[in-house]
Every structure is written in C-alpha cells, then in structure tokens.
C-alpha cells in the first residue's frame, strides 16, 4: 500500500482533476442507467464526489512521513485524516441510504444552469484578463456582458454601473486600503 501511495503522491494535481472528472462522468452514466438512482443521480454524484476526495486522502496518508516521537505518542500526521475518512465512510452510508429512501425528494430540475455556468466561466476569463488589460477594464467588461446577458437594455445603466464600480474599487481598494490592483500589460506598455 505504501508503494502505491507514494506513486499516487508523485502525480500532478492535473492528473487527479482529470481522473476525478472521468470517474464522475462514469458514475453519472451508471446512476442514470438504474431506475432507482436516476431521479436522485445528482444528489448521489455530489456525495460520490466527496467520497472520491476522501478515498484519495486516505490512500495518500500511507505516504506521509511519521516521526518516532509521533509514533510513540500515538498521534501521527496520518491519524486525523484517517479518522475523518473513517467517519466519512460511516456518515456517507447513512446519506446514501437517505437519498435512496423512497420518501426522499428527487433532484431539482435544471433551469438555466448553462447560463449560470457561463457566467462562472466568464468570471474565470475576466480574471485571466487581469494580467493583460488590467483589473478595471476587465471587471467593467465582465459586468456589462453579464448585465446584457441578464436582459438589461437600459444604456445609461449599462454605462453607469461599470463606471461607478471602477470608481468605487479605485477609491476604496487602491486609495484607502492601498491594495494595488493590476493595471495589466496593455497599460504598462502604453505607459
């Protein structure tokens, strides 16, 4: 087990993220294929996701170094993660049973989840753009785009809201709190 744990610990976190999503996708199809689990598949997936992380942490505990002093005391760096993993196993079993219980409510239907996800992705894009066009321009564009996507058509508000936001952040964060927000490569180049 220790050899496997050490091999696991040597992997990049990208590998874990990809493996996590692959397993979650497989579980989705598995839960969707069974009559009993289909109505609650997303609740089960949430739980399975947490259990996967728990399993990974448990396996990784075997690669943690244990000092003599810790071993003598009976409380090593492995102790707490293992204790929580064990408890997680117990409470997860209870949660699986509760979710699969007949009286449990089925999953909430998906509404405009693509839209919500796109806003989330947009915010990541906006953060990446901090380094290129700076915080102020990037956040202003993000606010305008989301406002338009949410159906806002009032031109005055579309202009005023991002401008006020930029002034507010500049005054409060830059001038009062001395937090230097990135101006970006574009403005550095212009300067």
């Amino acid at each position, binding site marked *: 087990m220790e050899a496997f744990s050490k091999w696991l610990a040597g992997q990049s*976190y990208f590998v874990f993220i990809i493996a996590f999503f692959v397993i979650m996708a497989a579980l989705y199809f598995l839960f969707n294929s069974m009559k009993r689990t289909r109505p609650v598949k*997303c609740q089960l997936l949430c739980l399975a996701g947490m259990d996967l992380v728990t399993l990974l942490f448990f396996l*990784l505990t075997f690669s943690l170094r244990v000092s003599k002093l810790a071993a003598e005391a009976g409380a090593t760096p492995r102790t707490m993660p293992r204790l*929580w993993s064990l408890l*997680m196993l117990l409470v997860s079993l209870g949660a699986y049973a509760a979710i699969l219980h007949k009286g449990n409510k089925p999953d909430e239907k998906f509404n405009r*989840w693509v839209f919500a996800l796109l806003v989330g992705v947009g915010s990541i894009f906006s953060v990446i753009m901090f380094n290129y066009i700076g915080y102020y321009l990037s956040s202003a564009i993000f606010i305008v785009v989301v406002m338009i996507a949410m159906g806002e058509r009032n031109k005055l508000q579309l202009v005023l*809201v991002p401008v006020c936001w930029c002034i507010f952040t500049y005054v409060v964060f830059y001038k009062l709190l001395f937090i230097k927000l990135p101006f970006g490569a574009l403005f550095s180049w212009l300067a």
Partner: protein
Amino acid sequence: MSTIFENLAMGFGTIANIQSVMFIFLGVVVGILGGAIPGISPSMAVALLLPITYALSPITAMVMLMGIYIGANYGGSITAVAINTPGTPSATVTAFDGYPMLKNGRAGEAMGISLWASTFGGLIGALVLIFFSVPLSKVALKFWPSEYFALCIMGLTTVATLGGKNWQKALVTCIFGLLLNTMGLDPTFGIKRFTFGVTKLFDGFEMVPVLIGLFALGEVLDNLEHYDPNKKVAREKVDYKLPKITYYWKLKWSIIRAGLLGCIIGIFPGAGGTIASFLAYDVEKRMSDHPETFGLGAPEGVAAAEASNSGSVGGAMVPLLTLGIPGSATAAVLLSALMIHNLNPGPKLFTEQPELVYGLFASMFIANVLMVLIGTYGARIWVRVGYIKKSILYPLIFAFAILGSYSIKKSMFDVGTCLAFGLIGWMFKKYKYPASPLVLGIVLGKLIETNYVQTLMVTGPIGFVQRPLTVILFVISIAAVAYPIIAGVLRNRKEAEEAARS
C-alpha cells in the same frame, strides 16, 4: 459584577472614537442594505465585506462586521413587510403578519414594530451575552485539551444534526470540511499533507475565498440559474409613516419574551435566528388572547419574530467568544475574521484582549441604537433597496467576490479557490447539502487536531475518559447524533402505523 461594568466601561472607552463609530455606522448601513436585498444573507454580507477589514485594526474590523451582522438581521424584515419577500431566512416569520399588516394599510406600524423589536431584541441579546459569556469564559479557562476536543466534537455534532431533514447530508459536509482542513502542514509535526506540490496549499485553503465562494458565489450562481428576466416585482404605493414611540409599549412583554427566547436558542450551535423566530412566533401565538389574528396582521407576531431573530445574534456570540465554537453560519464567518486578525477566540481572548471583547460588547449597544436612527429616517429608502434590479445586483456581487478573494494576497490561486468553492456552494444549495457545517469543519478542524494530539501526548488515550466533563460532553455528542436517527425511525414507524390504520 462590578468588574463586568468596569470592563464594559473600558469597552465603551475603546470604541468611543469617531473612526469606530463611523465603521459601526457603515456596518449597520451595509448590513441593512444587504439584509433588505433578497438573496443576500447576513453570512454572505459579512463574508463579502471581510477583505475590506484587512487594512483596519482588529477592533475596528470586528465592530464593523458586528454592525453588519446586526443590521442584516433587521434588514431582512424590510422586504418581508414591503413585498412579502424575506430578505433573510430568519425574516420569513416576519412576513407572516408583516405583509398582511401592509395589506391592511398598517405598513408604518409593521415597519416600526420590526425596527423597535429588532433593536430591543438585539439589546436583550447583548445583555445576556455579557452576563453569560464572562462567567462561562472563566470556567472554560480551566478546560483541559481533552475537554476542548470533546467540546468541539459536540459543537460539530449539534450543528450537523441541526441540518433539519437533511441531517445526514449536514453530517457529510461537516466531516468533509474536517477532512479538507487536514490539507497543508500538520499543526504539530509540520509534515506536508495533501498539498499536491502546490506551495500555496502549505497553510491549507485561505478562509476568505472559501467563505466568499460558498456563501456569496454559490448563492448568486443558484439565483442566476433561476433568474427570469421577465419577472418583475410589483410595487405598491403605501405609507411608511412610523407610529409614535408610545405605540410600542403595549408590545413590551412580547418583545422581552421573544428576545430572551431568541438569545437562548442562539446559544445552541446551529440553531440560529430562523429557528428562534419560528419558535418565538409559536410561543407568542399560544400565549395570545387572540391567536386567530396571527397570520392576518397581528403586531405581536411581527414583534416576536423580529425580537427573537435579533436576540439570537447575542446568543450566537456566546459560544463563539467563550469557547471558539460558532453558533451560526454568520458566527462562523466572524470566527474566521477573528483568526484572520490573529486573534484566538476562546476563553483566553477575555484575558488577553479584554479591550476587544468588551469593545465588541459595547459596539452591539451602539449598533442597535444606530439601527433605530438609520431605520427611522431611512425607512422609505430601505424599502426601495428590495427593488434593485437583479441584472445589476448579481454582476456586482460576482465582481465583488472576485475582487475580495484577489485582494487578500493578490493571488490568482485564491480567486480560483473562490470560484471552485462557488461551484461547490452552488451544487450544495441545489441538492440540499448545507454549506455551513462544511465551514465549521474547516474552521474547527485545526483546534480539534491540536487538542487531540495534546491529549494523547500528555495523558495518552486515557485522557479522553479521565475527566467527568469530557465524558459528559462525549455522551451529549453521541446523543446529538443518535437523536435524529431514533426520532426518524419513530416517525417512520408512526407514519406506517397511521397508513396501515387508514
């Protein structure tokens, strides 16, 4: 007793300066604004404003955050009365009678009652906090690590089991939070755990991005999913003129009863303002000479709901300040705020930082008094806050969340953490996994581990059963987990019997 008053006077002295009062004022205004906007909970308001407090002194930061907490609890009642949409979950009960009062042309009365009941409920909570927490902190100073460990476990089980119908999910998120807390350097031996080669994870996750992600982004993403651009809030033209102060005298017993009840319920970890307001409303209805008027516009109903949820603020601060165990989701965020400012909540805080603790107590009185002024003169403005377009509000919350996460260490990694926990928070909200036990797990994890290891190193495993108090606390913890299981089995059996009979 005289020491308490002397210390309280010192607390008033600590915050008797323009800067502190200004920040309390700002906190109350922001809190009322946040509370009045449906979709912004007190915990979300405090989490969003947390990054701004970095540049402030610990006392100024804490009094401002306390002001937000107090203001938000009242703010929730404004839209509950005005548009039958509670701004915060704890204001749900206020809408039961507040909105019917508005429909009956008594909007001003309803607004006035909610304001004054909130204020007096908050003051009762502050008084109970002072007189409860000081002796409790003296007892807690004598705790051994094993007792602390047992206490933390008890706090966690109580919180997790109070997840209502979803208690199993609450337990899962709580344990998951504890597991996530083990990331980074182990607190005793300094061994790297689950850092995946990322140096930024050596200290574990930064708390603020986690909080902002779970409470703010998760909530906004969920709201965006249910957003309907064609849905418009109907505006009603009503008169919000508040009655004279003498009008509220007849409600004094309702307010005192509900304030005390709210405060007592608030002391129990996980109970919070929502449960307090439901219970206080029920008690008031049972004690009323005219229970049939409840739900149709009974002033006692509004008073009970508001006094109890504001009273719960003081109650929730008792375990937070004395034991370092938060009594509500907002208290969990406040706990993180204390830690961010290098303050260790718990009994030592009373001896090491008395000016902060008593300053915080004093700020609760000032915040409640300011709330009356702000509430009285700004009633019409606060009502309009509820009408702010979601198409403006949500992008701004998003931008604020990103900015708040970035500004802590100017780290893109923290922004990524915030977004990742935002997605987790969204999924949790959508599939009814309570997020606050996760935060409690993350916040209390280190304390639990440190005390566990200390107990083992000092006394060995026998230390967990050596002292009676430790055993009692463990028994309560087991009972807290066993109770919902047994109650669930009994309920199912009863339902099955009833179904068989019919």
